[in-house]
């Protein structure tokens, strides 16, 4: 019985997204988008107030850099962050932030530049 319960918990854990509570509403460019040119900025819009704490961009699975979050004050729903143009290839964005209710949130999205 206890073995079955432990197994169930393990299954629940392994099926969970790492740190949940990510309630992203929309990202720009959209996840999976294919673009002709590198966008100057990326946009993150949430359905509730958020304070971004870390956003990283990985280009072509080789180069990773932290994006400049600028000066943030309070909790806002929309962010526009400058993106360093790295040329064609896959751009993978990973973000972390604190929700206004105190929940840590995170998420990822990717887009490709031809």
């Amino acid at each position, binding site marked *: *019985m*206890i073995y*079955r*319960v*432990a197994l*169930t*918990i393990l*299954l*629940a*854990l*392994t*099926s*969970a*997204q*790492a*740190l*949940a*509570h*990510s*309630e992203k509403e929309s990202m720009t460019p959209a996840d999976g988008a294919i673009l002709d040119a590198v966008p100057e900025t990326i946009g993150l819009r949430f359905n509730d107030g958020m*304070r971004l*704490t*870390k956003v990283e961009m990985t280009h072509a699975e080789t180069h990773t850099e932290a994006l400049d979050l600028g000066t943030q004050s309070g909790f806002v729903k929309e962010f526009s962050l400058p993106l360093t143009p790295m040329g064609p290839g896959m751009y993978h964005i990973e973000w*972390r*932030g*604190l929700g*206004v*209710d*105190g929940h*840590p949130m995170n998420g990822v999205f990717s887009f490709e530049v031809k």
Partner: protein
Amino acid sequence: MPDIWGQAAVATKFLLYLGVLTSAGLILCRQVFSEQLAGLDRFLRAWAVFFALLAAAMSFLGFAVRGAVLMDDASGMTDLAILALLWETPPGDALLLRLLGLGALLTGVVLGGRWLWVALLGSFLAIWSFCEIGHVASEDRLWFQSVLFGHLIVAAFWIGVLLPLHKLAGSADTLRVAAVLGHRFGQVASVAVPLLLLAGVVMTWRLVGSLSALLGTAYGLTLLAKIAVVTLLLALAAINKTRIVPALQSGDPKAGPHLARSISLEWVCISVILLATAVFTSILTVPS
């Protein structure tokens, strides 16, 4: 699988639950069963101090781990800007309430005597801190927070009786006191435990919302695992109430070791229940 900071968040939350609920439960039982537990005063107070200090340490560590979660790096644990940001949100309010409660609990326990009532108030405050944060608090309804508070008070009461009952069952000289304590706990639990279960059902209904969410999400599955272990715990409690405690009352010398073994199994169940709770309050999203 959660990343290392997610796992750290679960581990600290589990130990926090264990610390707060056990220290609060010990004080609650000490005051409710003052006649039976007067002889174990020093034993109970020593364990209450241990678990309250564990809770205080996990409160600080858990808060710092949130900083690490936000930065995906250990540096977040000591990043003053990040910690100050956290302090402005509900986790900051909860930490303050919890530390005030644990401070009152420790003060009352160390001074003893009538000060144990201050310790009891501190216990309630520390338990209420869980109602100020998380999925239940996000609904921002006092009645819903009160349901969780009642759920936790009964859980603490149950956990709090285990150490003294195990101690009393372990010696032939105190078996008679163990019988009285077990009987009286059974009487109170026959009213309190249904309330605990009812509160659990209400929270499940509000937070999960549907059968498909219960069966089809990680949150629902973890909750089901918790319910399965709660069922096992209830079965153990039923055996205690209907067989072991009556055997103790009739003077059966084997009943003491039986009760001690049953309580050890209850600790295993409670640990799994607290771990499951730490999982779905730390890293899983509420389906509804």
